[in-house]
């Protein structure tokens, strides 16, 4: 347990007015991006990162934590108003919240979303605060073998958990890992796939790549859609107090909140699965165990409570593997890991010993920003009428401009913009053809660690693959990875056989 001195130091870091102001502004930005249909929480973070590059570590992390949490809640607003989920994490219960709106219970739906998101977020942070230091102590004994398996587990989950088509997800992951090999080889210093380009020697810059994948590709999709359908929307009228009746709903569903939050944390902590999968799964579980499953999807608050607790709890959960092992739980934490490296706070168990005040400051930021969600969320709901009127044809070019200057700022040259454009086009084309893009970013982030651990282990063991299973934890993790692969392949073969018989 942390000493009082460390907690005091962390408190000093967090209560700096500059940190609080940054969190507030980033939160407002997250609210805006999350509330705009089509723009995701990952995009909010991707657009913020170039700014965080110029900040100290604590305000930088405060900005990211605040923006991602707020964006996930704000995604519920257009879901309830227009039946368009603002972020994929709100898609699971969009039908319920929209039907509630049609029944004249909009305030009840959004008030419940907001309060339950806040409670779910706090439970997620509670688990993060308890579990992360314990896991870190355990992880101190890890060698390259355990880290190799952990990285492999992270990469495998990216394939099997996050996508409907494992083959395409696998190809996306191979692309990410290949991009990570560009530049000087970490073990021998040989330039790889640089084609004589000086700029490529340092490798593919992670942040311009991510801006391309998550922001520029989204802009491309957005401008194409502009022509396909009308963008004017009718909004239902809404007034009155936001939190009326919400207390009663929260009191009637403590089990749903607890279940949704715990599922959210667990799924969030799983590498490759984030808030959106957490929301879908907890909605399904809620329906399965409900006494009134037939009411789901017709404007019922029960599933909404489960799923909106889960998606915000997943935010805290996804930081557990990121902080303890340096393995991202989802695409936002993949970005976080990049930022942590940039700030010299190399994620992993040693950061808990060397800089515990920074880790505790991160925990406190989580609590502060989650509590901040209530007033900010209230403002966002009240302002939604105006925000949602900003037409995409105005918004998308502005986002594109931010992408361009953000990518430039990362390399201080147009090389950043070139990377962003190339990878943005790749991401757009891939998503058009059913390839998920999150595995690319996981491959790009985990690639260097994966290769370093793999090469170190191979050289240590002189190429003996059995050495990867000699230590007990490594063996356990290795068996886990093999089981995931084995079961998935078996499932695919059975599925094909069943389809053929059918």
């Amino acid at each position, binding site marked *: 347990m942390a000493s009082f001195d460390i907690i005091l130091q962390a408190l000093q870091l967090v209560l700096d007015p500059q940190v609080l102001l940054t969190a507030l502004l980033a939160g407002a930005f997250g609210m805006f991006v999350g509330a705009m249909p089509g723009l995701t929480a990952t995009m909010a973070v991707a657009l913020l990162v*170039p*700014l965080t590059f*110029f900040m100290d570590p604590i305000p930088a992390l405060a900005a990211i934590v605040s923006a991602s949490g707020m964006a996930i809640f704000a995604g519920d607003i257009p879901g309830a108003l227009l039946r368009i989920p603002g972020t994929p994490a709100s898609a699971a219960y969009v039908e319920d919240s929209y039907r509630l709106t049609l029944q004249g219970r909009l305030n009840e739906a959004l008030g419940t979303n907001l309060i339950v998101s806040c409670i779910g977020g706090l439970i997620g942070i509670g688990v993060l605060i308890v579990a992360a230091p314990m896991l870190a102590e355990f992880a101190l004994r890890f060698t390259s073998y355990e880290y190799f398996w952990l990285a492999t587990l992270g990469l495998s989950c990216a394939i099997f958990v996050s996508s409907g088509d494992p*083959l*395409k997800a*696998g*190809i996306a992951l*191979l692309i990410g*890992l*290949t991009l990570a*090999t560009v530049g000087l*080889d970490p*073990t*021998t210093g*040989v330039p*790889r*796939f640089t084609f004589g380009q000086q700029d490529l020697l340092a490798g593919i810059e992670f942040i311009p790549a991510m801006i391309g994948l998550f922001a*520029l590709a989204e*802009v*491309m999709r957005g*401008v*194409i*859609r*502009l*022509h*396909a359908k009308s963008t004017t929307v009718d909004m239902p009228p809404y007034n009155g107090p936001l939190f009326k009746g919400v207390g009663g709903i929260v009191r009637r569903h403590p089990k749903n909140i607890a279940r949704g939050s715990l599922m959210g944390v667990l799924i969030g902590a799983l590498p490759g699965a984030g808030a959106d999968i957490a929301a879908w799964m907890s909605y399904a579980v809620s329906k399965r165990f409900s006494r009134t499953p037939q009411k789901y999807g017709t404007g019922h608050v029960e599933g909404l409570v489960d799923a909106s607790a889960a998606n915000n709890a997943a935010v805290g959960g996804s930081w557990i593997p990121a902080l303890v092992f340096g393995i991202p739980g989802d695409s936002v934490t993949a970005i976080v890991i990049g930022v942590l490296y940039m700030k010299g706070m190399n994620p992993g168990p040693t950061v808990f010993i060397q800089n515990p005040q920074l880790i505790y400051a991160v925990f406190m930021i989580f609590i502060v920003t989650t509590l901040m969600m209530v007033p900010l969320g209230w403002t966002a709901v009240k302002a939604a009428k105006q925000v949602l009127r900003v037409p995409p*044809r*105005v918004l*998308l*070019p*502005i986002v*594109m*401009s*931010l*992408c*361009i*200057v*953000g990518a*430039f*700022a990362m390399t*201080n040259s*147009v090389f950043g*913009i*070139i990377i*962003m*454009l190339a990878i*943005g*086009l790749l991401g757009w*084309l891939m998503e*058009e*053809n059913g390839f998920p893009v999150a595995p690319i970013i996981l491959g790009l982030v985990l690639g260097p660690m994966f*290769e370093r651990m*793999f*090469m170190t282990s*191979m*050289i240590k063991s002189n*190429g003996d693959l059995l050495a990867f299973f000699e230590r007990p934890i490594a063996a356990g993790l290795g068996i886990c990875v093999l089981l995931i692969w084995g079961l998935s392949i078996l499932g695919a073969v059975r599925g094909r056989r069943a389809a053929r018989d059918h």
Partner: protein
Amino acid sequence: MKITDALLGGFFLCLGAVMFWQAAHFPSFGGQPYGAALLPSILAVGFMIAGVMLVLRDLRARRTAGGPLLALQADLKDGGAPALLAVIGNVAAHIWLTPRIGYLPVSIVALSVLFLTLRLRPWVAVVLAIGTTLACWWLFAGLLRVPLPRGFLDGVL
């Protein structure tokens, strides 16, 4: 733009083969059997296997369903293509012209063109382009000291 899995699979198969050939030319590390080529070679084999699987799966499905090898989606046909090209052209203009002419003029002109392509009224397009460009300049070049190219405005700014 929809490209069939068979074509994409073929592409990944070729990509894997080229990568494998490239990796074979990476110099080895003295006395060490594992070097810079190991992971890229494994990835290349992965691409080749996945490519073949994609081709086979698509050909099997195609036997029953059929369909073209390459197809433009409905929204690209409905006028989405110029908008997409305007976005790509905009970013490309920044890459080629910004170091020569400077960020401010390139961004104002390119953004105005993009807003016009998205059917905004001309005066709204120009005002928004100038406003967005100046805001980005103020935030990045002013506050964050990012050396956005000044081009011919170097003496003035």
